[in-house]
């Protein structure tokens, strides 16, 4: 720290007797100043941190609050009383409509229109699709990533470049041909059709984990290898557990991306039997014939859609923290 250097300077000068006065008092004074400066720095840092956190929370949460407020407002009032911070006219009607708990006529009376969201079915579909894709993709991508990062084999770099190049393939490029392929296989509107293109890998997952594997310390692996463990064992028993933070991060990313995927799900999984939540919400949005969305219903639907994944994250999140403690890193 700069103060330390500074003070050692001062001590040095004091020791050569350049300044007059009681050296003991001087030392005490210097110590006090040093302490004050350190404290000041600490307070300043805490203040900046607190301010940063405050601003961040505000910017992130206020829109959510507004979402909640809108979800609880009787639809015609949403624009009529835009300034009121609390819902101008409380109602649980939006949630009831979204959960399909009311008939079409009742829905209209509650300020919405005739269609129900099919919430529970599409929630279940989202869970199935997301779980399958996440488990498959993360696992197989991690395997491939390890191979690229740590093993040497013919065409390794060429193949990896190919995978990375695929990263840059805009999704739109693949949607149509893949859709045609799924259709030709007769897998449209089935779970396997929806899941297939994402089940084995995405370039992103492989790239991300490979970058991570490359950056970790080789020592543990090499010692295990010297102890006679095979490559596969090294991978599964040592490297993967050590890489839990990255793997878990990858899991979260894949799960959330899949949960939020819209275009592909819309194209391949249109049937109510397999429709996922984003598609159901998207279809729900353009309720009124003229195009202005049913804000109340939409916000209620969104809130319901966010809840499951927030729970999952909170559970997984704890695991992340724990595994950081258990890795070989200090």
């Amino acid at each position, binding site marked *: 720290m700069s103060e330390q250097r500074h003070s050692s300077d001062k001590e040095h000068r004091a020791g050569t007797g350049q300044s007059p006065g009681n050296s003991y008092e001087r030392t005490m004074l210097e110590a006090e100043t040093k302490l004050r400066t350190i404290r000041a720095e600490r307070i300043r840092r805490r203040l900046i941190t607190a301010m940063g956190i405050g601003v961040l929370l505000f910017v992130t949460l206020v829109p959510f609050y507004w979402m909640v407020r809108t979800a609880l407002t009787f639809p015609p009032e949403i624009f009529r009383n835009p300034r009121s911070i609390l819902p101008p006219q409380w109602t649980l009607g939006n949630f009831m409509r979204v959960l399909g708990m009311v008939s079409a006529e009742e829905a209209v009376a509650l300020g919405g229109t005739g269609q129900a969201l099919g919430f529970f079915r599409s929630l279940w579909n989202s869970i199935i699709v997301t779980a399958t894709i996440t488990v498959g993709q993360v696992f197989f991508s991690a395997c*491939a990533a390890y191979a690229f990062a740590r*093993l040497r084999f*013919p065409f390794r770099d060429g193949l990896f470049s190919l995978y990375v190049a695929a990263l840059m393939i805009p999704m739109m490029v693949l949607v149509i041909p893949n859709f045609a392929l799924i259709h030709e296989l007769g897998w449209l509107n089935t779970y396997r059709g929806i899941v297939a293109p994402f089940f084995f890998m995405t370039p992103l997952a492989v790239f991300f984990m490979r970058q991570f594997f490359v950056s970790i310390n080789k020592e543990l692996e090499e010692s295990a290898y010297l102890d006679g463990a095979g490559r596969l064992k090294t991978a599964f028993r040592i490297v993967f557990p050590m890489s839990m933070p990255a793997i878990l991060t990858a899991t979260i990313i894949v799960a959330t991306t899949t949960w939020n995927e819209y275009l592909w799900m819309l194209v391949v999984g249109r049937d109510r039997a397999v429709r996922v939540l984003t598609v159901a919400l998207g279809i729900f949005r353009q309720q009124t014939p003229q195009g202005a969305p049913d804000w109340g219903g939409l916000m209620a639907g969104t809130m319901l859609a966010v809840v499951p994944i*927030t729970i999952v994250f909170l559970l997984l999140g704890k695991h992340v923290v724990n595994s950081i403690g258990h890795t070989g890193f200090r």
Partner: protein
Amino acid sequence: MASQVPSTADGGQRRNSTGKATVVRKERRYKGEEVRAALYLIIPSLIGFTVFFFYPALRNVYMSLTDWDMLTDPEFLGVQNYVRLFEDRFFWNSLRVTVMYVIYNIPIQTVIGLGIALLMNQLKNSTAFRGIILLPWFIPNVVVGLFWLMLLNPLVGPVNLTLEALGLDRIQFLMLPQTALPSIAGINIWRHMGYVALLFFAGLQTIPNHLYEAARIDGASAAQSFGKITLPLLRPVMTFVVVTSVIGSFQIFDTVAVTTEGGPMRSTEVMIWFIFEHAFRRFNMGYGAAATMVLFVILVGFTFAYMKITRGSESHLG
């Protein structure tokens, strides 16, 4: 692709004194066991890659050379679509808009994300904080776009009401050509900053604490620690973040699709929207495919250029 146990020039295997098969002809030495392990590890991803990435990509190239309206048979055109693209001022416009968008989006998003990650680091044990910051990212793009449409409503949206309450003029965010694109960028920054932060945060955890301690003992300031330790060691993560963010930004679609649909006055007509319009609304699949190929080339070029410039695939830890 399956790598065979490497053979010698005479076609047979040769084992040296340590019992490992070696290649005599090639320069590199591949260990059989390594290659086999690699095989098992890679095959599933290879299946997925070939069937769902490689083959469709090729098919798309073929489509770009045809005139196909999705209903009748494709008609071979050679490079006509590309010539037409070159002369299409709206295509160049979409390219310009997309680049502008990336410039608005990435630097701010990356800096904010890094800042948030540092904040997260101060609160390492607070999962709640991380969860909250990540919340926007859990919402589908479709809904985020619609939702901000309401918030940014010129007459009755809370943002403008606040501006007016502070005595400022209202801003017609998504309705004016000058402000629409920055607004879209802002929406996406709001949604992604937590995600970017999470990536940086994971990267920060891999930096061993003893390096910081050593630095402190040597008398380094916080800023110096940051510059000499954090940043360089974050390079692989930074590469990953920048490359994937830029690639992702180039492909922005959902938000535009639900808010501005390319308007006003094409100020938010990003490339994917241009392609979507031509492919799905004007039945011009071949033309759209050609545009996607151009986009692809751009992204490839960018990635290699970036990797070369920063040599970001290396880490400084090992």
